[in-house]
């Protein structure tokens, strides 16, 4: 899978394009607030306690 991170399209949106094995493109649209929530959820699922991530400012 080939990836390229592209610049922010607006204050809170980023897009990440990948090429699937059959040659089609797929674009992940991520939003800063959603990404922060996903990181916090992932940290909570860690088997060993980790220092809490700094709370991110909502964009």
């Amino acid at each position, binding site marked *: 899978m080939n990836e390229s991170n592209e610049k922010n399209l607006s204050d809170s*949106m980023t897009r990440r394009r990948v090429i*699937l094995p059959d040659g*089609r*493109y*797929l*674009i*992940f*649209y991520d939003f800063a607030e959603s990404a922060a929530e996903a990181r916090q959820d992932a940290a909570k699922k860690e088997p060993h306690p980790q220092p809490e991530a700094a709370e991110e400012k909502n964009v």
Partner: protein
Amino acid sequence: MSELRWNPLMGEWVATATHRQDRTFLPPENFCPLCPTEPGGFPTEIPAETYDIVAFENKFPSLKKDPDEPAVEGTELYPVQPSKGICEVIVYSPRHTNTLAGESVEQIYKLILVWTDRFRELGERDFIKYVFIFENKGEAVGVTLHHPHGQIYAYPFVPPRLEKELEQSRKHKEKTGSCLLCDIVAEEKSDGRRIVAENDSFVAYIPFFARYPYETHIASRRHLQAFTDFTDKEQRELAEILKQVLVAFDGLFNVSFPYMMIVHQRPTDGASYDYYHFHIEFYPPMRTATKLKFLAGSESGAGMFINDTLPEVKAAELRELVKPVDWKSD
């Protein structure tokens, strides 16, 4: 195999796409191709454990950027062209059993940002003349995947219904000096009986000439032609009014309401369409809780729709179901 075949009777193209005949059809939830791919689980179209919104090239496209050679040879009466274009699937959220009506206003706003980006990127391709954004929702309209999603067909020509709207808009502007849809919105506002919802930037109404009992249009108040003309406030207020209309639809018969959602914008062929006006049209097939409106002889064969209901009555039903928006709740 696929190609574009010319219909000389109607002066329009028809696409054949035989590879679509065997496309994925109503799979069980644990084999949904639009869900995230769980570790060790069924590999879906989306190689991620979660996502926000995803856009990808349709696996069973009606149009391709590198199309196959036509399956038949054309003639002078029946020209044939490769079916060149781009078909995308836009997956609204990772939540399989949700619908756009069930998503938060914030998620709908994010979708509008994605639509804007797709319209801009696809419209910049020199072989794309029209970027058509739409959603088919519900088995009653022929949906084959339940996971909440829409599509984009980026056509190599301006499709027939848009050609007609553009021509009507252009003639109205020439005759009266004003925008046709601006005048329609003004008349609907003046009458008031068919208004469903409104905010600073948009008006939702069942049009005077509605063809389906609950056909609903959402038009921008400001005269603009495409998503790329929107301000941030307009993007947010479109999300709000979409949420209101979609929730009202579901409240009519307390079922997840089937519909076709159609975004009408200017073409992307580089010409000027300043006489045209952005709007969204909903075609819901339900006419009662238990009956559908079918496109039968008059609609399909003659192009004349018969509406068994009065738009003024149906709009009043919908208006009663419109609720204030809350940005964070589903």
